């Protein structure tokens, strides 16, 4: 039995708010039967909630609502990834999915529905033990778009310098760590590592980063709220890192002054 990697597909997502508007007469009282796209959209949201907040508690309500109402682009990335897993469901789970599609749901409480949560856990969330590599890569690629500011006039030249630096010194990725630490000494190790992985993925795209991807998965899983809140801090740290000197030939040749 082979394990395929996810085949990333185009999909149509319907937000929980839009589903609520469509069924507004039934929302608080009657049960409704959802379309396939609607159910898949809900399942992706449940996945995201389970992944980031596996144990439900009252103090998380706002954080869970950030996921449910898709308030932040970075937090929505997990839902998007979950949807890809749902689009790639194994045939064993499709049979179950089709049963779920034939049921009726109370929309008001659908996120807490035990059968749906059970399905998502078994068919999607538990599979993160394998998909963590794919998720880490997906996340780094997408979140780099939010924290690497490419609008600067000098960005292209900085980018060329950094790429050249690592082509010439592939074993010296730790230099990024040094520069991040210099740019923002108050970051935690965990945050610093995530920024190294981000820059590495963006500028070098090495083909042996699976450890980075797997670790990214755990950092993101347990800290998504904080990562979203501190987005501008990371952005300015990275801007500062790019602004630092990436001297290609320090100490080599050239006139001595």
């Amino acid at each position, binding site marked *: 039995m082979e*394990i395929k990697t996810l085949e990333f597909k185009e999909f149509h997502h319907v937000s929980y708010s839009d589903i609520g508007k469509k069924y507004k007469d039934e929302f608080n009282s009657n049960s409704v039967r959802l379309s396939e796209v609607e159910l898949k959209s809900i399942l992706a949201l449940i996945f995201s909630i389970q992944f980031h907040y596996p144990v439900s508690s009252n103090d998380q309500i706002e954080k869970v609502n950030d996921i449910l109402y898709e308030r932040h682009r970075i937090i929505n990335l997990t839902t998007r990834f979950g949807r890809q897993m749902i689009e790639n469901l194994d045939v*064993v789970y499709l049979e179950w999915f089709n049963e779920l599609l034939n049921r009726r749901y109370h929309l008001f409480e659908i996120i807490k529905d035990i059968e749906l949560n059970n399905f998502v856990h078994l068919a999607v969330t538990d599979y993160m*033990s394998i998909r963590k590599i794919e998720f880490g890569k997906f996340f780094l690629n997408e979140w780099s778009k939010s924290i690497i500011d490419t609008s600067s006039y000098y960005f292209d030249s900085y980018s060329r310098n950094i790429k050249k630096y690592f082509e010439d010194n592939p074993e010296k990725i730790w230099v990024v760590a040094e520069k991040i630490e210099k740019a923002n000494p108050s970051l935690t190790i965990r945050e610093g590592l995530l920024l190294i992985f981000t820059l590495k993925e963006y500028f070098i795209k090495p083909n042996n980063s699976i450890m*980075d991807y797997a670790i990214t998965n755990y*950092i993101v899983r347990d800290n998504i709220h904080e990562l979203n809140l501190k987005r501008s801090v990371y952005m300015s740290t990275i801007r500062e890192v790019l602004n630092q000197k990436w001297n290609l030939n320090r100490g080599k040749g050239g006139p001595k002054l």
Partner: protein
Amino acid sequence: MITEYKLVEAYKKIERLPKRKYQVIRGGRYYDKEELESFIKDLEGGTKTLEGFRIIIKEELSMRRALIVLLQEGYYKLKCYDDVTIDLIQLQNKAKSRFLIGNRDQEALTYPERIHPKNPCARYEYNKTAKMHYKSALKILVIPINIYFIDEKAYQHLKIVYEDVLIC
């Protein structure tokens, strides 16, 4: 102390976690099972190092699956559960310390035979839905690789159980 670690030092530690270079994904389409298994072992080997950076390496697993793992490891040699006393609360606590267990999918996990039956084909003969759920629960535990079992023999035994359930 976490603060003793400097980022450079931390990154170098991470670079040293894989024992060799892995080709986990072949041709962009498939996972190489042996490579994935070895890689996951290296990652687990780094648990302590990563904990020092407050990164928690723990796999999410539904309570039913976690209990199947523990029941299998503890009692796979037995023909039935009647002769042993199994404290499910204790088993659930053990599951929580070994895996990341959520509480959003609570099923009625009331007794071992209901969680992980000794003769699943007979038990589910007239209950197709329950059999499908059981089959689904077993799948990731046995296929494709051993991620969850410490006891390899218990894992190999469960693979046989799974193959039986697929055809009965």
